[in-house]
């Protein structure tokens, strides 16, 4: 349960060699790969097979909740109020503004909370193998290797011309 799993960390300078490395590793059966990049690189996301996100549904739910809350607020506070100038107590045009604002507010909050949960932020325990150059100009590929396959992983990575290659250990996720 506790302890460290071993893996290989390779730092690449070019996004295309990073993508090649990821694809070769996945083809060879290494599934536990993590890539760190200094900017959002769509080729890398595609190579890693990411698709869909819970953030979208959460945002929608947040927005609908906000709209409902807005209409509920205007309804509850207007139904027993005085009729001023012949205008109806519960007017849709007036309620729309508040309902819209609250729907945007709740949707935005939901999006941020969903992001923090999905991306597992904030990270309090430094259990991700990381090098400061990954936020500057290098792409980091960390692949977790089962015992006995580390030579094979090293060979695959070395073929793609990394700037740096080393063995690293990382603490298990909670």
């Amino acid at each position, binding site marked *: 349960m506790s302890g460290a799993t071993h893996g290989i960390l390779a730092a690449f*300078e*070019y*996004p*295309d*060699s990073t993508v090649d490395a990821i694809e070769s590793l996945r083809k060879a059966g290494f599934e536990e790969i*993590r*890539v*760190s*990049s*200094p*900017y*959002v*690189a769509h080729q*890398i*996301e595609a190579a*890693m097979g*990411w698709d869909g*996100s819970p*953030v*979208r549904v959460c*945002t929608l739910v947040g*927005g609908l909740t906000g709209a409902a809350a807005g209409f509920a*607020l*205007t309804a509850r*506070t*207007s139904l027993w*109020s005085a009729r001023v100038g012949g205008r109806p107590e519960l*007017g849709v045009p*007036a*309620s729309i*503004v*508040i309902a*819209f*604002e*609250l729907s*945007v*507010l709740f*949707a*935005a*909050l939901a*999006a*941020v909370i*969903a*992001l*923090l949960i*999905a*991306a*597992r*932020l904030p*990270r*309090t325990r*430094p259990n*991700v193998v990381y090098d*400061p*150059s*990954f*936020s*500057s*100009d290098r792409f980091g590929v960390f692949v977790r290797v089962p015992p006995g396959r580390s030579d094979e992983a090293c060979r695959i990575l070395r073929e793609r*011309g990394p700037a740096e290659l080393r063995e690293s250990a990382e603490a298990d996720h909670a």
Partner: protein
Amino acid sequence: MNEDILRILDTPGKGWWRLFPFAAAGAVLFLGSWAHQLVEGLGVSGLGGPVTWGVSMASFVFWVGIASSGVLISAVLFLFRTPWRQAVHRAAEVMTVCAMMTAGLFLLIHLGRVWRAYWLLPYPGSHLLWPNLRSPLLWDVFALSTYFVVSVLFFFLGMIPDLAAARDGTTGRRRELYRVISLGWRGTDRQWHHFGKAYLLLAGLATPLAVCVPSVVSWDFATTIVPGWHSTILAPYFVAGALYSGVAMVLTLVIPMRKAWGLEKYLTGKHLDALAKLCLLAGLVVTYAYAVQVFLAWYGADAVERASFWSRMFGSYWWASWTMITCTALAPQLLWFERVRRSIPALWAVSILVDIGMWLEYYVVIVTSLHHGYEPFMWHLYRPSFTEVGILVGSVCWFLFWFMLLTRLLPPVAISAVKEVLPPRMRHEREEVRP
């Protein structure tokens, strides 16, 4: 690239130290004038008669416009995938946050009795009286609170990767700060993937909000029957005005910034050219709105409306109206000429003129309509008092104070975003170059 940007966050240069004390002194003037108004009451302002909204309200609308424009530049251009947005959007977002703070304060300032401001919130009180949610003044409360939260979230979220870069690139006490607020960002594929989705959604949410907020503020005026205010064009007029003043303010801030910090490589002449063109476009829309308002006043044949516009042009405030027209409608026509757009001092001068003109526009709309209303015996000449002028001048310094502080601490150019649009160095290109 990281070194270039992060170097700025080190000890500030002489220029910063020369300007910052003035900004700080102005901020003190702002708070002092407001304190004087709080203690003595709104009587120390020039407000009176039908003119219940004056300089402070004009400033409020002005700063709200600038704030919403920052998100328009950031979010809308993101959705359109405009490449030149990446270098300028961080400065625009910092401007938004500082402008929101200033606008929020003006909301309280123009109220007078700020200790009663909580009456605006819908809470179940013992008096069993809810605020009137059908009033635009309450819509303002919801719109501005929402906008404040969403724009801060959008700003902070987009900055997390850059804060991580700052954490990795700096040392010392500052590093601790960046380490905490970057939330342990490691740039992993999982993080970037969800981040991309969330950022896109936030941009999509912030865009209608940036259109909605100046509209809701304009409805404070448009839903009344005051001549000169009661017009449906006010909402698009204020939205276009917001975009216009915001783009001009971005230019005003970014031009000295790039000079002071040597950012010419990232904020190139092309970026300034694009901003200038956007400024010109918004200026044309605002000019059209002026023309339509005047036309409708004549076309509608309402005597009071016509009289209000006549007084706006040729009455007691003719100087404000014509300065406004010169600064907002005439001056930016210079931007048609590429020579002007390429000349940095000329561009800066035009942007400052537009800023002044846009503030005057809100002043003209608010004060001239109020001072020359339906009842001739109520016509009242409004002159801002020293306290109000102190608040006005101080507020500009207050804004500058916070802008200078925030750009000291936070990366002023969006590092990861710019990297995204730079053509990546590919390994196969390098191998072709090697013999």
